């Protein structure tokens, strides 16, 4: 059975409109497509700031390699981890290539992005004069750094707190903090 079947197509029917009795709450979900289950490993995280300025959630971005059964071929995708201050960002131990994860995510084509765009941050000096861009993808220790083709556009998925679990972890121990290169 193909583990990449996009399982739950409809979902995202939240119960919250029924929780308020005093007044009817408007429903304005910014961009919800379909939910999916992804199996694979974190390849790299995007070293960029800010994550958000409030008036909404914050986001951490990483690249996830979807694994297809026993095949060595993987499909990289962009994952935006969406969290509120009360929930906090992903812990450092999440960024461990030895861990195989199952992510319950929601597809969001509006944040699809090319590898090239995802990899570099623009810079300027104090006068606004452009400076060379900074490479901001941080590959995890042990992750193949040739898995991303610069012109490839990565499909984007949104991950929420608690919507992931570790399936397996390779032996050899886990570094206390993510080692990147």
């Amino acid at each position, binding site marked *: 059975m193909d583990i990449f079947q996009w399982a739950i197509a409809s979902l995202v029917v939240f119960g919250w409109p029924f929780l308020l009795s005093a007044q009817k709450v408007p429903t304005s979900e*910014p961009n919800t497509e379909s939910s999916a289950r992804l199996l694979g490993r974190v390849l790299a995280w995007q070293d960029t700031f800010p994550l958000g*300025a409030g008036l*909404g959630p914050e986001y951490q971005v990483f690249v996830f390699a979807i694994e297809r059964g026993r095949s060595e071929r993987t499909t990289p995708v962009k994952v935006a981890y969406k969290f509120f201050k009360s929930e906090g960002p992903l812990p450092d131990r999440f960024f461990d290539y030895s861990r195989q994860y199952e992510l319950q995510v929601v597809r969001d084509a509006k944040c699809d992005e090319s590898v090239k765009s995802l990899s570099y941050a623009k810079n300027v000096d104090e006068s606004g004069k452009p400076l060379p861009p900074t490479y901001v993808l941080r590959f995890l220790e042990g992750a193949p750094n040739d898995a991303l083709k610069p012109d490839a556009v990565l499909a984007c998925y949104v991950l929420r707190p608690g919507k992931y679990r570790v399936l397996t972890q390779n032996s050899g121990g886990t570094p206390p903090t993510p080692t990147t290169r």
Partner: protein
Amino acid sequence: MTLSDPTGLDVTLNCDTKENCAKAVQDFNNRKGAQFKVELGKGGKLQVVKGSVAKDIGGAEGKLLGAFNDTQNHATINVSGNTGQFEFGVHNSAGVNSVDLGNLSKLDSPSNAGGINSGDALAHEALDAYYSLSMGAEAADWAAAALYPGLLRPTDNQGAWDQFRTNLLGSTYSSAISNGSGTERITFRYVTPIPAIDLFGKSPQAQQDVFRNAGSRVTGVTFVPPKQ
């Protein structure tokens, strides 16, 4: 800031100073298309000014008034003049949000005409706190954003460096307004410039600590209309 009162109005302003409470009320009453006004009641509680409610009140303003009149749920908004960080407003926990008046004031600058103003941002945070009493954080944010828009994920980030490129001074980035009315281009500066070496080889959380410890303030907001 906590907006709540004994008659059932449910938003309480928990302010760091008396002056900031007064400023928050002034900002709140500066909502675009405001159809009622509030004033500071006893204990820092907000109450609707008598006779200020428009006869034909409806839409977002009607929902906001409804939240004030809900006797069952009480929301709190912590109001600070300067949190030391660049956020406009954040959701802290069920029923509690915080706002930074210094950052919010940048939303009222001429460069942001057409964008979210401080009053609408305060209304968003008040409703977010209110809705979060009865639903999850994400759903509450959506519900609040449907009435008073919020900001979507940061894009097009541009770091600002000193002339030697050894210290990170700040950043400018874009956040689309959730109702599609345009984009906010937001610039902030670190209170203490961050030496590049302090970020090198750091884990995600360690980097966040560096950014937070440096302190930051919004220095400018520019509204960018949607492309035609």
